């Protein structure tokens, strides 16, 4: 992959000015797949303790942004800092919940096994999952409301229960920052409610949560910080300030049906 001409590259000395207080700061991030840029010159700071939503049309690069932050895909240029340091030095501070469809739910493991995977890093190489980790995993499953399903094989869980198991896996990591890729996609209403309550609970304990989200109608109810993304950052800031008609129009462009959704959503602002 040939690097793009870094037209907007700034001197690297500025990069280090990013305050280490920010759980996540993205600086001049560009990501390209097959020479086609997906993210362009992103600059982004997420303040500590925010419950932030990343919103934008399909193909805006929302998941790509998360993956680039977690070194899952190569960055063409730019840097991502977690509390002032590169991700590879801060893995223990970050928990990641991928999209539910990204794994094979027919895999021969139980819900408890999946949750216990969140403890592997702490256990270390070669050692088995011990009693303590199993208890942690069980507690996390209780916390997301499916403790009674711990020993079920994961294909026997409903979509919402699978999402809850993923969330429980993130919980056992006991991280500071939670990256969530569409946690509300295709789950039942009860699960959506349970998940948002959990995220709010994490948030109230000072954790930072970053959520890729697609439902504009719930944005103002769920998130106190909003990133509007469409290959570039359209807006990033407190939801009250950024969730505006102009910003949505900029992010969603001429996609009229979405604009209607947005207009509808805007009516809900402040309720």
């Amino acid at each position, binding site marked *: 992959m040939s690097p793009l001409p870094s037209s907007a590259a700034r001197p690297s000395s500025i990069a280090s000015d990013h305050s280490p207080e920010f759980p996540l700061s993205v600086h001049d991030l560009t990501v390209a797949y*097959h020479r086609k840029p997906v993210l362009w010159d992103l600059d982004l700071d997420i303040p500590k303790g925010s419950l932030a939503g990343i919103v934008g049309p399909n193909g805006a690069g929302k998941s790509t942004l998360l*993956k680039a932050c*977690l*070194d*899952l895909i190569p960055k063409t240029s730019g840097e991502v800092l977690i509390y002032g340091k590169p991700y*590879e030095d801060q*893995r223990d501070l*970050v928990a*990641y919940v*991928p999209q539910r469809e*990204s*794994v*094979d739910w027919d*895999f*021969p*493991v*139980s819900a408890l*096994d*999946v949750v216990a*995977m969140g403890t*592997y*890093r702490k*256990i270390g*190489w*070669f*050692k*088995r*999952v011990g009693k303590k980790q199993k208890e942690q995993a069980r507690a996390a499953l209780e916390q997301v409301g499916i403790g009674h399903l711990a020993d079920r*094989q994961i*294909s026997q869980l409903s979509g919402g229960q699978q999402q809850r198991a993923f969330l429980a*896996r993130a919980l056992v990591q006991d991280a500071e920052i939670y990256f969530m890729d569409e946690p509300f996609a295709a789950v039942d209403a009860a699960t959506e409610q349970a998940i948002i309550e959990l995220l709010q609970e994490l948030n109230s304990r000072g954790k930072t949560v970053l959520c890729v989200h697609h439902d504009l109608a719930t944005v103002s109810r769920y998130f106190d910080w909003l990133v509007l993304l469409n290959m570039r950052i359209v807006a990033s800031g407190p939801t009250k300030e950024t969730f505006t008609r102009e910003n949505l129009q900029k992010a969603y462009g001429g996609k009229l049906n979405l604009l209607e959704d947005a207009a509808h959503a805007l009516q809900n602002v402040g309720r």
Partner: protein
Amino acid sequence: MSVADLHIIASSGFFDTLIETLFLESYNTRLVVLGTAFLGATAGIIGSFLLLRKQSLLGDALSHATLPGIGIAFAVMVALGGSGRYLPGLLLGATITGLLGVLLVLAIRRTTRLKDDAAMGIVLSVFFGLGVAILKIVQEIPSASAAGLDSFIYGKPASMIMSDLIIIGVTLLLTIVICLIILKELTLLCFDDSFASTQGYPTTFLDIILMGLVTAVTVVGLQSVGLILIIALLITPPTAARFWTNDLRKMLWLSAFIGGLSGWLGASFSAFFEDLPAGAIIVITAGIIFLISMIFGPTRGVLPRYLRQRQLKRQVGRQHILRSVYEIMEAEQESHPLKNLPISLERLRDHRVWSKGELPRLIRQARSEDHLERQPSGELRLSESGFGEASRITRNHRLWELYLIKHADIAPSHVDRDADMVEHILGAEMVHQLEAELELQEHTLESPHVIENETPPNAV
């Protein structure tokens, strides 16, 4: 039954040889049968991970890509003045081009937008074609006997010697040890590689270990099952094992067992069909075990699943018809306790919407279970046991409805359908729990919603 007993039963020569082979009585067969069994077990273990990593076809590309290496290694060894048929040299060549094939697939995957299956298909067929051509060329080298190189294609376990058995045994041990040591890491890699990567696990390195073991078993198995069929030994045992269990550990052991059994039986059988390629017989044996697993495997087998569905369907049908009869009797009678009086077929037909042919089938079923009797007048009447069952079913249904209304905020008009779905799986314990929850003592319950007759479908 001991081996000695079997001997007495098997007086004919054919059975003598069969038993001799199966129970490893002669040195040569012992070697061959043990060797293929070990190979099958190794392939069963490592194949499980390959399958779960969704890379089975990569294993196929690898095995086919070994062929040019065998030809080239032969030519090189002849050129250096050797015999050309020195086995470790041939296997080294096989390993090199096999890995080259895998690397090529990975390179195509990374640099182009070709789909995986296309990339593997191209590498697999081109390398194999190349191998066939090279083999043809080296066979024409004068003064070098290349005869027997073909046996790498279809396999020839009978050519196995003690050192081969040792190599296979070591590979098996190595595979078991490595897989046990990094079981946790391999599981994570196969289930969710991006999560593994965020946790700091070197996924590429783990993949290399996995592919390294696949390469080892492929190369070691070239001699006995051949490069075309080794993939079957990698895929068939784990897929068969999957029908028996939902637990990864059990699946691994079972897959090793099935692989080992296929090797054992296959090699034994092939002693009788000397004209047929042994690799094929081993694979057919594995295929038969797969077929049996697919049909009878208790966890995901076709037959158990069908039986479970049929049983549920019968149970649901029974509850529908008995409750309907009970509700009709309730509607027709003023007085309590309810008397078991006959009802008309028309009344039953109009009581709820039955799908086509369902009602006659359910009546037949209920009669065969002695729940329902047909009166000489043509009317239907519950038997004594049917009456008891019907009142129990109706009560459970209403218990559940009440629970839903009280605790789940479901409108009474909607509750019937949800109760319908759940009541079929209510066990005695849950019924007690429901009773306690709802603080109920009395035996009969009134329906929490109005029971209407469904409009018959032909009136719509």
